[in-house]
C-alpha cells in the first residue's frame, strides 16, 4: 500500500505521464554531445586520407575507443528522443504512430549496438 497522497503521485507528471523526464534527458544528452561532437568532427577531419591500418590504429587508441563508444551511445539516444517527438507531432493516427515509434526505437538500438561492437572489435579484436 502506498502512503503517498494522490496529489503527490500526480504532481508534475502532466498528460504524458512521465513529467519532464523526456525533456530533461534530451537536454542532458545534448550537453554531453557538445564536447563529443566537436572532438569527433575535428578528429575525423585530421584523419582525412588515412588508410585502413591507420584508421584502425586510431580507433584502437584507448581515448578514441572510449570517445567513440560514448558518442555512438549518446548520439543515438538523443536522436531517438528527437525522432520520437517528430513522429508524435506529425503522425496523428494512433496505430501508425505506435508502429513508427517502435520501429525508430528498435532501429536506434540496433544501429548503436552495431556501431559500438564495430569499435570494440577493432579495439580488442587484434
Amino acid at each position, binding site marked *: 500500500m502506498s502512503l503517498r497522497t494522490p496529489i503527490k503521485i500526480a504532481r508534475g507528471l502532466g498528460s504524458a505521464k512521465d513529467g519532464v523526464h523526456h525533456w530533461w534527458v534530451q537536454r542532458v544528452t545534448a550537453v554531453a554531445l557538445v564536447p563529443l561532437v566537436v572532438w569527433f568532427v575535428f578528429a575525423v577531419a585530421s584523419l*582525412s586520407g588515412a588508410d585502413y591500418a591507420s584508421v584502425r590504429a586510431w580507433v584502437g587508441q584507448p581515448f578514441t575507443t572510449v570517445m567513440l563508444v560514448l558518442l555512438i551511445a549518446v548520439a543515438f539516444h538523443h536522436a531517438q528522443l528527437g525522432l520520437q517527438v517528430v513522429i508524435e507531432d506529425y503522425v496523428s493516427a494512433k496505430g501508425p504512430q505506435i508502429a513508427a515509434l517502435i520501429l525508430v526505437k528498435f532501429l536506434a538500438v540496433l544501429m548503436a549496438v552495431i556501431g559500438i561492437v564495430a569499435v570494440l572489435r577493432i579495439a580488442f579484436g587484434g
Partner: protein
Amino acid sequence: MQTQNRPLSPHLQVYKPQLTSIMSISHRASGVALSLGILLLVYWLAAAAAGPDAFARAQGIVGSFLGQVILFLFSYALFYHLCNGIRHLFWDAGKGFELKTAYASGYAVLAVSAALTLLVWIIAFATGGA
C-alpha cells in the same frame, strides 16, 4: 459528424517567413537529417571492423563526388544543430528571449556554424587532400 472542411490552425502559409521561425524548423530538419547521417558513421566503422575490402568499398563511397557532397552537408547540418542547440539551451535556462537577442543569437549561429564547417574542411583538405 463532418469535420473535414474545418479551417486548420495555425495557417502557416499566411505567415511571412522569419529568421527565427525558419531557424526553428531547420533545427528539427537538421536533427532528422543527422539521425540518417549517423548511419554513415556506423557503416564506416562496421566496414573498418569487417576488413580491408569492406573498408576500401566504404572509402570509395565516402570519397566519391556524391559522398563528399553528402559529407559536406552532414558536417554543416551537424554544426548548425550543435550551435543552434546551444542557443536552445540558453533559452531553456530562460535567457535570450528578447527579440533583439533572439535575432542576434540567430545570426551568430549561422555565422559560427558556417565558419566551423569551413574550418573543418580546410583541415580535412590540408591533411588528406580529400
